[in-house]
């Protein structure tokens, strides 16, 4: 082993550095970085929280997202639900979830018979290629779901500003 060319730091400097190191490692232990992505399990739990005991049947909900997205920072999304939107039969709410963003929830929308058409559009962030799911809650208490798979080239949300 070669001899160190720099003089050994004094005991005081050494202790100060050791203290700083200990503080830094404690900080890392207390505030770990948020998980980069929500597991599909987290999405299932979030959907379960909306559904309660009910089950969502596939159908009636159309989720329109480009299949291939270049920039995940702003992905256009349109969701439409088949419904007459009359006083007797209308869409009460639409919830949108994703698999791999840090949080599974994207947006929850409350509609009513007065909406006239159950069609909503927005722009969302996608952290990775993943599945996006929309759940529609009808006035009769039934739930319907629609999904879309998206391939994302440039991810959003979690990139660092460095």
């Amino acid at each position: 082993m070669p001899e160190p060319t720099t003089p050994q730091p004094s005991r005081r400097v050494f202790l100060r550095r050791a203290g700083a190191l200990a503080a830094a490692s404690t900080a890392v232990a207390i505030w770990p970085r948020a998980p980069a992505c929500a597991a599909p399990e987290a999405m299932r739990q979030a959907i379960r929280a909306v559904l309660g005991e009910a089950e969502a049947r596939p159908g009636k909900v159309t989720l329109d997202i480009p299949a291939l997205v270049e920039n995940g920072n702003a992905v256009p999304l349109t969701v439409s639900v088949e419904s007459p939107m009359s006083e007797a039969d209308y869409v009460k709410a639409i919830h949108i979830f994703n698999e791999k963003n840090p949080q599974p929830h994207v947006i929850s929308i409350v509609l009513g018979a007065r909406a006239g058409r159950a069609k909503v559009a927005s722009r969302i962030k996608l952290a990775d290629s993943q599945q996006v799911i929309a759940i529609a809650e009808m006035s009769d208490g039934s739930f319907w779901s629609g999904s879309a798979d998206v391939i994302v080239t440039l991810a959003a949300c979690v990139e660092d500003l460095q």
Partner: protein
Amino acid sequence: MTARIMVSVPAHAKRGEAIEIKTLISHPMESGYRVGPNGTMIPRDIIRLFTCTYNGKEVFRAELSPAIAANPFLSFFTTAVASGTLAFRWTGDNGFEATHIAEITVE
């Protein structure tokens, strides 16, 4: 800093017609999951709630998550029932609040 708002509402509509409303507001929608240049997390700063009221009655409500893109865009429909005002309201983190009012004439 006041947010820039763009809202598109048809000036005239037939009674009973479903009209499309488009809204856009300038806002960073900082997700709270990004690391800044000094290595610390950038705190979350998002719009959490958007509502649209038509002559005082709420016709549309959206609860937003960090997954909504910066400068949130929302388009939706409502039935033209009477002439009057549509009031839009955005609220969010750090006491963010913005409102906009549009007039509509229904024949």
